[in-house]
């Protein structure tokens, strides 16, 4: 029953002259655009979104850090040393007597006789030059071969004893090195979680949109129910119920699954919505009437039309996953030491005393915020670019 009469252009008269769709049409005469595929159009449109492009670069950097975490870390992140408890971040000196020679100064610790707090004093005589590709603790590079080369180190001394770029925590572990390793875990938790929720979301959303009827109603109600449940207490309960004796890897995957159990609903809604709107598109009916089979209609016509939307929705879902992991671990219910994640690191700064004594423990918050912001901007940019034909 689509017998509505539309204006000759399908647009509300000339008001449509200002919509992007028409602007696209403007460039019709250009051959380059005429033969541009959808991917190219999306890329051209995305490129205009400056903030999203910058965010994309930032996120690539984050993932590079995650991949090369051990190379970037210069100290063994699990090495404890009571003598170095709560060291403040250490400045890098670039010049030594006027010549460019980046170095740090040796630090000597002592206990304040009145407050009993440990205080650290730089020794200006004890110059420790920085160098690139130094030897340090050994690790497996990309899990492939053993090496002990790290991006930076100190000439003539162990990095563990000399470098404290972001200070140390209560147990004297180097925060910079820990942050590098934590980035690997936190960024990958999000990714794995999103992939899991994608599988759930696309399957259920797809079923819902494709079949409709009872299947659709049941899945829709399920989504509604999950969305009206306060998620964090449930996660907390499920996470707390994980057996204590589980290994880091087991807990890691369990947490990822718990997080993705909640996150799939948004993706399912996006997928279902796209399916429903595509199902009523004339070009889908045209393909059916031409004799195309269900699989061809699905994969040649429908999936390409919402792939870009799904990528955008995934990008927007990632930060929520990262926040969830961070929050759970922060509360002591998610990843547990010896695992290192942003949330685990932040746990050190959970109470006011810790923050008052060692405010640098909160530095971890900065990469968390930057990553979440970048994902949001990137997701926004992708979403805007996802439909290059405008609507």
């Amino acid at each position, binding site marked *: 029953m689509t017998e509505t009469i539309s204006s000759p252009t399908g647009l509300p008269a000339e008001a449509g002259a200002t919509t992007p769709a028409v602007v*696209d049409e403007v460039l019709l005469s250009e051959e380059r655009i005429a033969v541009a595929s959808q991917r190219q159009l999306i890329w051209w449109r995305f490129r205009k979104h400056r903030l999203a492009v910058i965010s994309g670069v930032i996120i690539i950097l984050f993932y590079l850090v995650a991949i090369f975490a051990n190379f970037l870390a210069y100290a063994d992140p699990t090495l404890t040393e009571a003598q170095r408890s709560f060291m403040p971040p250490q400045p890098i000196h670039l010049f030594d007597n006027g010549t460019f020679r980046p170095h740090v100064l040796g630090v000597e610790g002592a206990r304040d006789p009145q407050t009993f707090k440990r205080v650290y004093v730089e020794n200006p005589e004890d110059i420790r030059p920085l160098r690139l590709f130094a030897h340090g603790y050994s690790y497996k590079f990309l899990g492939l071969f053993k090496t002990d080369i790290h991006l930076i180190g100190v000439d003539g001394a162990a990095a563990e004893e000399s470098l404290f770029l972001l200070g140390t925590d209560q147990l004297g572990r180097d925060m910079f090195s820990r942050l590098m390793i934590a980035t690997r875990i936190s960024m990958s938790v999000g990714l794995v979680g999103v992939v899991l929720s994608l599988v759930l979301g696309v399957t259920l959303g797809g079923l819902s949109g494709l079949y409709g009827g009872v299947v659709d109603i049941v899945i829709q109600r399920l989504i509604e129910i999950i969305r009206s449940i306060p998620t964090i207490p449930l996660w907390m309960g499920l996470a707390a119920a994980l057996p204590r004796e589980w290994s880091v890897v087991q807990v890691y995957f369990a947490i990822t699954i718990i997080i993705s159990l909640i996150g799939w609903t948004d993706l399912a809604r996006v997928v279902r919505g796209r399916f429903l709107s595509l199902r009523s*598109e004339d070009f889908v009916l045209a393909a059916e009437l031409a004799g195309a089979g269900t699989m061809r209609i699905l994969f040649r016509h429908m999936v390409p039309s919402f792939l870009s939307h799904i990528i955008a929705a995934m990008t927007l879902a990632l930060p929520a996953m990262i926040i969830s992991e961070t929050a759970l671990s922060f509360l002591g219910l998610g990843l547990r030491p010896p695992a290192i994640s942003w949330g685990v690191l932040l746990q050190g700064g959970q109470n006011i005393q810790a923050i008052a004594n060692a405010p640098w423990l909160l530095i971890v918050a900065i990469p968390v915020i930057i990553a979440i912001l970048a994902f949001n901007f990137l997701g926004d940019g992708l979403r805007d670019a996802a439909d290059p034909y405008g609507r």
Partner: protein
Amino acid sequence: MMNGHDQSETILEVKNLKKFFPIRRGFLQRVVGEVRAVDDVSFTIKRGETLSLVGESGCGKTTTSRCIMRALTPTEGDVLFRLESGETFNMATQPKRQLRGLRRHIQMIFQDPFSSLNPRMTLFDIIGEPLLVNGVKSHDERTDRVSELLTLVGLRPEHMQRFPHAFSGGQRQRVGIARALALNPSLIVADEPVSALDVSVQAQILNLMLDLQDQLGLTYLFVAHDLSVVKHISDRVAVMYVGKIVEVAETKKLFDFPKHPYTEALLSAVPKPDPRLRSERIVLEGDVADPANPPSGCYFHPRCPYVIDRCKAETPPLREVEGGQLVACHRAEELTLKGVSVN
């Protein structure tokens, strides 16, 4: 005006076609009624002619066409389609699997030139798709056929690598026509093919359709609300009102000497593009009846200026009156109605 084809051969016969949509209400989504979108429609189309299905929004003309294409499954009735070989199939009851083989003979042209072309495919892919899925696997063969089709509809074959966004509404509609022609169908269902186009482009598409019909011996079922467009393309016209056909006649007869009061009102309501022809019009009272809750008797009786008591009680059947016109009106013989002839 049968375009030189055998006048007697029927290509499509629609018999007592019904399509009701259930109305669901309440918590349990119980069926509380039905919209009688198509309510006992019968007509035939002869090979090589153009039959137009005309009516106002909601009259069921689009639903009828979708049932013929079997994009919707009819509630009741038959859609008998006859191949050139003489074999006859019932589209309404054909199992889905056999439907695929049959559909190449009936193709469709859509109203919206924007949503009917997949924006993510090139013209080659769009027009070549029916070929590909019907067994033309050779890329070269498809290239040849697509360029032939593009030339046929007045587009340049060298544009086949372009995407739909590079074309204007009229050009896109040509692409849609090319796609419909790809499999050499014998019947084309055109659902409001020009109503989304600018008025100056409409004539281009209508002319193209007339040319193609002559060239390829096509049969058209042309669904439209615009009587001027209908007059230009049709051999015969069927007028629908609230799910029923009220009149079928040859175009000239229908426009000059309508036999049904609704046809008369419809013709009278069309603004004539000549200020010297301003005249008193028949203006119908009220709104089109609700197909979920149609009036008794003749569905048109509450708005009909010639209503008599019988119309309120008795549903008039579609019957033949003098000159071969089919009319569903009790008073068809006694009324002299006004058409739109210039003279």
